[in-house]
């Protein structure tokens, strides 16, 4: 064996070859001879390597980490000064935090841990930092309980949701049904935005009569917030418009419309938030009020109204234009409006939020006229239409309206014979109600019908409550209806009985004839179906088949369905779903002679009854 290479350098490759040839000789075979054979061994030498061929090595190293972060507005004041940043180390100097003052509320809200209303980033928040800002906010319940934000009453869960929704909205329309607390939700939303340093200057515009209400509510829900009401002479108002230091200005639509255009553009105040209460005031996008509202320099736009649509879905477009969610002069179709509504409108109704209320069961009683009623009705209708046609171009909506009223009266009862299919049905139902000790309220458009019913329903001890009853006698009537177990029926007119009364001890409501507007009917029904009602409320609407009542019902249903397509289900508070002139002419296949097809007909309000 030979060594072919010289001594290798440290970096050279060591190559060595070994001759493995061995002398081979034949030997006797067999095991024993093999044992006697001496093994032949030859040796060869190889130089030692100076370094090992391969040494795995590893040292711990720190993985480079990148960070993403944001300092929230409230954190700014906690940032150390430049000097402190250079000298202090982690946690060595503990900053003392003050113990929160214990309030009665904080001690009593252990249950708040169970409810968690989180602020969600609005759909329009695109940047990660914007979205993180909202996601990192604490649940509203702990936020409001954890700071010295005294809440005089515990908000309902749906109100917490409304506050969280408003907080995260640059453009939002809060369209809760009247009475669900839009004012409180708005004030608390403003309060939290101010706390989170998201807004500094706010303008709230409302109808003039509502200003004292807003002032009172601000004192109740946010007493620590300074507010100023823009009122007085023009000099004082001008001073108030531009006065620094007051975070919240309240004014009415007329003052806003008059004052702001008069202020030179460079001096006009800028607002972080503009709130329009009863925002249907700007439903006409070409109105001066709407134009001025849109011209206000602002970062956020909130609108509040219980009736976002009064007559036409297009009215929403003006509100959306104010909220800067549609381009100027845009004309979105119904589908687009519905999509925008999903994103920018929050609407809750009592039906949806007061889930602990017993249900309201609606049933339409479709009745066939009696023979005498049928004859009287057909005669009146035929004669009436002939007369209307004879009027030619002189026909007005009032002429048609008078015919409608006459026909409706006949569906209540035939004035000649006194026959009434509605009375027959009512008597049958009342026998059952009285037998079970129940109480019912009946509504009619006419006091004359109520008096007529009073005479014929004496077995049920009816009580009458309408505009003809002197005011001082009204309260005792209601007391008697509540207390007297034999008084099973209260006969009321829509005008006098539809609003403001609490009759939740009555379990049955009859709509003897139909009002022009289903929202007024709902208000009437809500006398019985309201907070405090412990049993389901059964509502019976009397509708005579193949009569004007059926046609009116169809028109009103179609209108309601149209609005629900935009605003969603559960909506029952569009107080202006009245029929317009075109629709009332259409009841008799007539065309309106007037160009003003949107003019409402019928009494302006149920007070006429």
């Amino acid at each position: 064996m030979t060594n072919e290479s010289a001594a290798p350098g440290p970096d050279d490759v060591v190559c060595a070859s070994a001759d493995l040839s061995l002398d081979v000789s034949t030997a006797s075979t067999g095991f024993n001879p093999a044992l006697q054979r001496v093994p032949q061994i030859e040796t060869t030498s190889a130089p030692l390597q100076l370094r090992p061929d391969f040494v795995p090595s590893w040292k711990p190293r720190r993985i480079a980490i990148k960070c993403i972060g944001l300092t929230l507005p409230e954190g700014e004041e906690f940032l150390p000064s430049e000097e402190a940043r250079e000298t202090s180390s982690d946690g060595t100097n503990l900053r003392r935090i003050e113990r929160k003052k214990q309030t009665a509320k904080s001690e009593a809200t252990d249950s708040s841990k169970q409810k968690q209303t989180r602020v969600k980033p609005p759909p329009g928040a695109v940047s990660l930092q914007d979205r993180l800002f909202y996601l990192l906010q604490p649940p509203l319940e702990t936020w409001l309980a954890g700071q010295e934000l005294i809440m005089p009453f515990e908000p309902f869960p749906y109100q917490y949701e409304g506050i969280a929704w408003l907080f995260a909205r640059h453009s939002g329309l809060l369209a809760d049904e009247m009475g669900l607390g839009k004012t409180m939700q708005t004030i608390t939303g403003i309060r939290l935005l101010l706390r989170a340093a998201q807004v500094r200057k706010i303008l709230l515009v409302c109808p003039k009569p509502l200003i004292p209400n807003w002032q009172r509510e601000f004192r109740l829900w946010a007493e620590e917030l300074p507010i100023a009401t823009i009122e007085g002479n023009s000099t004082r108002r001008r001073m108030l418009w531009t006065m620094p230091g007051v975070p919240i200005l309240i004014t009415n639509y007329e003052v806003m419309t008059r004052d702001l255009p008069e202020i030179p553009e460079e001096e006009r105040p800028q607002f972080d938030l503009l709130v329009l209460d009863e925002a249907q005031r700007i439903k006409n996008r070409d109105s001066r009020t709407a134009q001025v509202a849109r011209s206000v320099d602002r970062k956020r736009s909130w609108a509040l109204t219980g009736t976002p649509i009064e007559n036409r879905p297009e009215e929403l477009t003006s509100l959306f234009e104010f909220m800067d969610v549609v381009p100027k002069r845009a004309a979105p179709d119904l589908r687009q409006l519905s999509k925008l509504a999903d994103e920018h409108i929050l609407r809750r109704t009592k039906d949806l939020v007061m889930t602990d209320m017993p249900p309201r069961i609606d049933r339409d009683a479709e009745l066939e006229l009696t023979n005498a009623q049928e004859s009287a009705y057909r005669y009146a209708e035929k004669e009436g239409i002939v007369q209307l046609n004879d009027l030619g171009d002189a026909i007005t909506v009032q002429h048609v309206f008078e015919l409608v009223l006459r026909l409706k009266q006949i569906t209540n009862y035939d004035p000649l014979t006194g026959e009434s299919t509605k009375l027959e049905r009512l008597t049958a139902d009342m026998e059952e109600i009285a037998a079970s000790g129940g109480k019912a309220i009946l509504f009619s458009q006419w006091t004359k019908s109520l008096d007529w019913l009073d005479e014929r329903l004496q077995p049920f001890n009816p009580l009458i409550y309408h505009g003809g009853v002197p005011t001082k006698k009204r309260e005792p009537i209601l007391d008697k209806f509540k207390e007297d177990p034999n008084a099973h029926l209260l006969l009321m007119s829509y005008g006098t009985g539809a609003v403001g009364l609490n009759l939740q001890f009555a379990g049955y409501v009859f709509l003897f004839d139909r009002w022009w507007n289903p929202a007024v009917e709902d208000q009437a029904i809500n006398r019985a179906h309201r907070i405090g009602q412990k049993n389901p409320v059964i509502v019976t609407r009397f509708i005579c088949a193949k009569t004007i009542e059926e046609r009116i019902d169809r028109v009103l249903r179609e209108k309601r369905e149209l609005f629900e397509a935009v605003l969603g289900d559960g909506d029952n508070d569009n107080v202006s779903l009245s029929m317009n002139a075109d629709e009332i002419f259409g009841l008799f296949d007539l065309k309106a002679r007037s160009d003003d097809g949107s003019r409402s007909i019928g009494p302006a309000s149920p007070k006429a009854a």
Partner: protein
Amino acid sequence: MSALEVDGRGHVGGLLVTSHTGRPLEFQCTTPVKPDRTQEILYGRALRPWLLGELIGSTLLDRVSIKPDLVVVRDDEMLELRNHTQTPVACLSNTEESTHNSRSIAGRQMHFHSGHSTDSEFIESRAHLVPDQADLEEPLERVHEALTETVRTVLAR
């Protein structure tokens, strides 16, 4: 402080600095950190404490401008952070049982790094500063949501 494992990409960590009433002041989070195979083998059982506590935790704590007085974590392995900072670190316990190394703050049991017994006394002396109704776990849920949102946004890019 909390961390989240992202499928196949490692861990992300987040630190939310809040006021004593839970209002958010500052937030920092990391990009995903993934140990290599060698680190996995050599660190063995110490891998997660090293990753979550030393690596991610101390990076976040260095990074925040508003230095917290106390770091609250939910993961025992993050207590390792305490070996790399002077700031006390408390871990929310899953049980109501108290031990010599735990304290109850605002109705929650918390335990501490066994090598830093003074932390327990430190917290005890300052427990009165924490509002009674404070929910010490809730901010960690916010961190979790913010991390999820960040990961979702970054992956979508």
